[in-house]
Each structure stands twice: as C-alpha cells, then as structure tokens.
C-alpha cells in the first residue's frame, strides 16, 4: 500500500483514495460532431503502461478532491502529484 501526497491534505494511505484511470483525456467539447471511431477513441481507449503513467486519483475518504499523479507502475514510485488543470511537472 503506497502513500499519496494529496495536494490538499498531505500524505495519506492509498486506502483513502480511489483510482480514476488515465489522466489528460479531455471530454470532447462537441461530441455530436464526432464520428463513431473518434467517439470510441475517447470512450474506450486507455493506456496500460508498465512504467511511468499519468493517472487521475480522488481522495474519496478525505477531501473528495480529484487530482493527478505520475506513477511508475512497475514499482509504484510516485514521481509527482499535481492539481487538476495543471501541467504535469515531470515528463
């Protein structure tokens, strides 16, 4: 169980958080303009990398805020935590 440094509350145990999948997938502004394939790309396609991954997390049993983390899925090391709307501080 790893520790996550919630940008609003500080370091807390993983069990307080809920994972929300890949980060930086923006909901299209005009879904009706999209073809089936383009919509499916947004709806279904997600990366599942062994290595550095950008993820959404929610402090579900805390402040209920959503934020992003950069995590190496091979060893669970968290390289960065940043708020929604912010640019990832690492590549």
């Amino acid at each position, binding site marked *: *169980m*790893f*520790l996550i440094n919630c940008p609003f509350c500080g370091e807390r145990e993983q069990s307080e958080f*809920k994972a*929300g999948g890949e980060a930086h997938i*923006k*909901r299209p502004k*005009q*879904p*009706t303009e*999209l073809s*089936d394939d383009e*919509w*499916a790309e947004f*709806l279904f396609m997600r990366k599942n990398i062994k290595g550095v991954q950008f993820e*959404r997390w*929610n402090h*579900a049993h805390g402040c*209920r*805020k*959503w934020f992003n983390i950069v995590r190496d899925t091979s*060893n*669970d090391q968290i390289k960065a935590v940043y708020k*929604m*709307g912010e640019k990832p501080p690492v590549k």
Partner: protein
Amino acid sequence: MSKNLRFKSSKQVDETYRISFKFNNKTYYGYKGDTLASALLANDIHLVGRSFKYHRPRGIMTAGSEEPNAIIQLHDNTSRTEPNVRATEIEIYEGLVASSQNCWPSVNFDIGGINNILSPILPAGFYYKTFMWPKSFWEKYEYFIRKSAGLGKSPKEADPDIYEHKYIHCDVLIIGAGISGIMAAKISAKNGLKTLLVDEKSFLGGSTIYDNSEFSKINNQITSSWLEKEINEISKLENLEIKTRTSVAAFHGYNFLLARENLTDHLPIDQRENKIRHRLLKIRAKKVISATGAIERPLIFDNNDRPGILLSSAIKKYIDLYGVACGENNILFTNNDTAYETALSMVQRGIKVNAIIDNREDIDSKLSYEAEKNNIRIFKGYTVVDTYGYKRINGLSIMELSKDGQKVIGKKIRLSCDSLGVSGGWTPAVHLFTQSGGKLKFREDDQVFIPNKYPSDQLSIGSCNGDFSLEEITTNTVSSVKKFLNVNNTDYKTFEIITGINKSKRNIWLLPSDKILGKTKSFVDFQNDATAKDIKLALREGFRSIEHVKRYTTTGMGTDQGKLGNMHALGIISETAGTKMGEHGTTTFRPPYTPLTFGTIVGRNVGEFFDIIRRTPIHDWHVENNAKFENVGQWKRAWYYPKANENMHQAVQRESKAARDCAGILDASTLGKIDIQGTDASEFLNRVYTNAWSKLAIGKCRYGLMLNEDGMVYDDGVTTRLDENHYIMTTTTGGAANVLGKLEDYLQTEWPELDVYLSSVTDHYATISVCGPHSKKIISKVIPDLDFSDEKFPHMSFKNTKIGQVKCRVMRISFTGEQSYEINIQSNYGKSVWEKCMEEGKDFNITPYGTETMHLLRAEKGFIIVGQDTDATMTPIDLQMDWIVSKKKYDFIGKRSLYRSDTIKDDRKQLVGLLTENPEEVLEEGAQIVADIKKSPIEMLGHVTSSYYSPNLNKSIALGVVKGGKKMIGQKLIIPMENKNINVTVADPVFLDKEGERLNAKL
C-alpha cells in the same frame, strides 16, 4: 518413559514448573519454556505426522518457523481448534491438547500410507494428470483423496478470541533480534531514533544466545554472555520498543509491513479470557533493517525424511536451549563446519556421537580436531546413501564420494543410530526482502542468494545478508548500520573474535546414490512430498521456469513455502539444465511469511462490525411492528410487515391491495439525496440528465434519467427545484454514493467553470411516502395548514411547510402510480411524524408497506428499477423510455453514444412486459426467455427481470428484456424451466392505469 533425554540447567526451560499436556490422547509432561516440539522430543517422540502425498511417517525436523513436517492440530474439537500449527513454534501451557494431522485414522496406522507403496505410479503432476480428466473421475476420487490427504480441521463454531489491528509509525524497524538485530537496535536507539525491534520468538538473542562454546568468544567473553549483556543494556533504552512473539508477515512497498503480535497463545486457556489473542501491527517505518538470520539447509539423499532426521542446528538448539537430546546414538551428516558445533555440544552433555559423515575430503578447523580428540569417527569424503527404520531412523549406510562428487564408490558401510543431524550449509532468510521487491544476486563461493538491490529505504544485516562468521557479523553490522542510519557514534569499537569455524564447504545439491534415481526417494520439499526425481521429470517434460516447475511438482507450495528445500530445487534444475543458478528465476516468496489466522486478518471487523449497518430514523418503529428487513447496500430496509401467521406472499398481497384501495405508507429515507446549489445548477442538471431542466419552474419536480458516457442507464430519480439556484436530487438507495462521486468528478475535472456545489444530505432527512386514494385526506390532517387542492398542489410539485414548529418539504410525487405525498423532515423528527401519519390514517386503513410491495406496485406501472430491470447494457431506448431523451439538447452525458452503430441496432435486448398463459403462474426472476426450444443450441433471447403476482390485476405480471422485444408485442415466447416450459405473451410493460388517472383519483 525410561529414557532420560532431558538434561539439567538449560537456559530456556524452567525445571521447577512442570506442565502436563496431551498429544494424540496421551498425557505427557514438559516444562515451562518448552515448545511442543522440545517437550515431545524430551519424551522420545519423533513421529508426529504423515506426509501429504505418500503419507510417510514424519518427525520433527527443525526448531523454528521453517518446520515442514511437525504440523499439528491444536485444541481438538473445540471452537479454538486450529490446524497447521507448527509444533516447533507453539509454547506449551498447562492443559494443551494437540493431535497429529495429515493422517487417517491415526498416525501409527495410516490408510494413505498405501500411497507410499504406490509411489512409482504417483509421479509429479499425477493429481493434475489423472484426476482432472475425465472430470467425472475427479468427482469419484475427490472424497477419498480429500479425506485421506487431510489438511486439518477447521473449527465449526465461532472463534471465541478477540483480535485487533494497530498502526505503528517509527523511524527504524528492525526485524529479528539475533546478534545483529540487537546491535543495530542499540546503535539506532542510542542515536535518538524511534526504534522498534521485533522477533518471532519468546526470547531475544536468536541462535547466538545459546552459543556457549569455549570456541566462540567476543572480546574475551563467551559469545552468549557478551550478547546477554547487550540485551540487558538495550532493554533500558527509552527510544526502543521491543516486541517478542511478533512475526513479520508481509513487507510491502513504501516500507509498509504487517506483523502479528501473539499475546495469549502461550497461556493456559483459562487465562486468556477477555484478552486480545493476536494483534495485527500495521507498521510504517521510515527505515527498515532486516536481521532475519539464516535457515540451515538439509541434504538431499535417499530416504532423507525419516523421523529422527533433523537439521543439525535444530539438534544443537534442543540441547543448548531446551536441554533435550534428540537421540542416544547420534550421527551427523554435513558438508561444512557447523555440524561440528552440534557434535561438541552433545559431547559436552555426555550424549553419544557415533560418527560424523562429511562430504569434504579435507577438513581443517579447530572444531574438527576437537571432535577427533573426543573420539568421534569422522568419515571424510563420504555421503549417506540410504537410511533405515520406518517410524524412526535406526541406521544408515554410507559410501565414499568420487572426486567430482557425481558418483559413489567403494564399499557400503552400515552404521546404526537413532538420530541423524544433517547440515547442508546455510540459506539467508531473504523472504521478506524479496517480498518488498528486492532483487537477489548469487554468490558462487558458498552458493547463496544474497540481497542486491533494495527497492526502498532498507538494509539487510547479519546472516540474512550472507555474513555468516561472527567476525563478519559484528564488523559489518556496525559499519553498514552507521552508514544506513547516517550516524557516527556507536559504543562499538573493535571486536576481538575467536571462532573455531572454518568456512569451507562442499556443496552438492543432489547427493549421488548407488541406486538409479528412479528408485530413490530424495525429498526436496518435505511438506509436499516433492522429490529430486519429480523435479528432474518436470525438466524432462519441458518445464524450465522455476515457477512452472514449482507448480507442476508442488515444490515450495506448502504452508512452509519450501523454506528448507527451495535452494536445492533451484540447484537441481540448474545442474540438470546446465544453466547458471538464478537463470531460470528464483522463486518468489509471497506474504505471509508464516501463516496468519483469519482472526488476525479481520481483527475487530466481525459480527456487527463486519460491515457498516445503516438504519433509518424510523427503524425502531419497523422493529416494534414486526417488520422483516432486507439489506439494500448497507441499509436495513423494512421488507414487509407480516401480521399474525402471514407468510411473505400473503403480507405483500395485503399491503399491495391496501396501497391501491385505501392508503399505504413507506419509509423512503434511504433514497439518496444530493443538495445542489449554485448559479449554474440548472445548466449542470441539463448536462447530467437526458431530459431538459432549464425550464423547470421553481416548486416543480421532474423525473430524470442519468447515463454513463457509454449511453447506458446509470441511475434515476426525482429532482425538485427548490429555488432559482437550488435543487434537491434524489438517487436510488444503492447508487447514492456513486452518483455523488460521478457528479463531483465532472464538476472538478471536465466543467470546473460551472458554479455548482454538491452536498450529500441523505442522512439529514427522513422521507415518508403516503400513497393511495385516501392519501390526501390523511396528509391534510397531518399538515392542516397547507392547501392540498389539486389546483394549488398538483402532481409533480412541492411545498415548503411546517409540522408543528418543524420545517419540512412535501413533494407530490409517485413511484406507485397512486396519488402520493412525500414528507421530508429533519431526521430526528422522522419517527414522530411517521407515527402521526399512522394515527391520522387509522380510519383510512393506512397500511405500512415494505420494499417488496413497493417493487410490486411499481412493476404494475412498468416503472423500472435501475440495477434490477437494467444492467450496464441498457440504453433509455432499450427501456422504451425514448420520451425522456431530449432531442433538442446539444449535449448531455452519454448522448453521443445513443447513436453509435452498436446502440442503434434493432435486435438489442429491450424491456417488455410478459404475461403468462396461466395467470396464476408466477415466473422466476432471472429465468431465460426463448422462442424455439427445438433448435439446438436453443437461442437465448433474454431473461425475466421482475416478476410478481398482482393482487390488483389478479394475475401474474413480469418485466423482462428480450432481443428486439419492442416489435414483438403479442408474440408468444417460452420460459423453459427445469420440469416444464411456461408459455408467455409479450406485452406492454405498463400493466395498470396507462393513462395515469389514479394520480388524481378521488374516493
């Protein structure tokens, strides 16, 4: 018992405190401080169990948690009974009752022993190969195999003991209180670090604490005395917490560790009352130091598993610590110097050592000369090729090893013994290190895997790091701990070490025999009966990866995780395959290091604490009025209220009829309620619901359907506009938390520009729903000041009002199709308002109804229940709810998905009504729906989602989903059941009052 195997003045055992215990229904005596194993050995009992596959007699083999054989059942036939307890770990107490496991009917006569004779036909993978196919065979064999294999008995009653969990945060956690752990603890605590030292044993000092030999000294003191002084000193340190009987079970990432502190297992049963038995420690340590020691390796030769064959180090421990000899005529078999320490310990106590068989040809150490001086015969360059004796070893034969160690040569010599100590060198206990993700490297010199890369802020010291000599341990522990903790000062200066041990070793993974391999039983995994032959067979059959060989042969798959034999398995694989050690992987050790009881894992989360129970403010009234309850998520909801001798069906029929003929009352407090405020609240609802919300007038209510982005129905409920920028949304009971989470997600991540605030207010309000043709009269009496006329208070509207002095909201909304009012009032007034409704409704036959009647009433109206009539594959179009999907709105969650190529197909499963040919026949929910039963395979068109007998329509009604069902109204379909086929007709899902006249019905 005539034999005297107990010696006076041992360190651990208190000879003034005699303890009686029962093993296999016979009473024996031991002393306080004994383990069950040491007490049994003192009574000359070696045979304690049978092996898993061949049911060979097995004895105590070790003196620690690595024990593969001496597995017993503790506390026969009581609620505390516990299988798989290692006799080497359990401390005896007055009244202990234990029995052998893995044998049926008894340890001395075991039916499964026939497997030993049949063993030529029981090779590796035999169970997989034979019993898994054909399947019908497995069913026949299973009973016999399970019964004779015997993995112990689980208790049949609830566990009477108490368990708990505790969090611990520390600067430094040190695992293992042997010599290196003690030294590390002293350095850490004396430098001001908050330190926790844990050890699985009841005493501190590890194996060094009984190292009393003249040949082992630190700074001119006998090693054990030197260590005792150290222990004395650290026990006074303020920064140091010491926990004995505490074994670390798991070492996870981020230095998160789980340990079990055993608090009462060593106490007599009557002293355990009201005490916590095990405490699961959840430890977060900034730094972790593993000082977990090493485990002695056995040697792999023919019949190396007989009772009376022990690890050499275990024999030494039983002598030096417990004052118990394992036999009267001992032989040692070794490939290194440590067995000589055992020999000399025996000599010191006057125990006969018949011989030492040593693989090595050249032996040059103080200890070996001392052994020779004491007239012990040493067979240099020899190996054991066989052993004799069924329930106890009585002899063995040896032969000379060839120069390359691959063959045996010369004449066979037979020797007699009643105990054999084996030593194959030492394996660092790296289990926890690898659990944490650590990578190992192989050291060729002495053929051991040692820690290489640390995945977190941790360090391994002492013999678990491959430092086996006293010199290496003391010097390296000080230097590496100083560096690791970044401290300069320690009390340790230089060490003057005297030791008799020479490090030379002749490592042969599988010792040669004069027989062909196929005729030998050289056990590698003692608990699971995997032999060297099995491993070689697996390699011949094409397995290469250690993880595959392991599963195929079951090597290392027992409760001991192969702590003794895994290295030999790897060695034999690499020798046979001609590869380097570790090239095919090392086996992964998984938590827990030693088995945990379920009690420890669940802690206090048992009984009523197993899961949270949510009760409505009106719960007590339901209880007083004989309600039966059903679980809806964590909620307890009133299910139905049986009167006198009514069964469920009768009660539900009565409640349903009353709700339509007179009045019904329902506790709807569990429905999720979300308070929505902000200048963009209307826009927000527009985006999350399928229908339009901006034009909803203040004071009006509207039903809404919420989709996932994939177009599938997610939740539904009525939302009311309380004010310009203020709404209250209701959700399904089970969906409340998820809906709030989903809405927050969109607000925070997709639409942060919207000015909207959400609060869960589910628990803040009690919700009482009164329905039926008399509902208006009743509610008018409860709230006399409010105008309930249809003009002033029409269907789908709401009023702010008061009951007495208490503010409340009344909504006129209906889930039953009847005229219906819903009072929402501060929770703590819920019960009194409910009682007032009951009182005022008495003359109108007001009838409380539960969830079952609610479901029946809504089914008559064809109203869906999300999660019952839908799963995550139903769009609103599939539900025939096209009317609720706005065509005008530019966008809402899930809109684009409603016309994907997949969602517009005609043959999707669609919600329909089903009427049975025989109106008395009630369908089973979940039953399959088909059209043609002659076709093979029969095509499944759908299934029944809701089914009831309607007392208001006097017939059976059902809802179901059917492929292309919308166009099948009037068509006949079949519900095939076990004994019959039921004919049904597809119908409109609304069975009652399609025009909605009852919403305004007057009586």
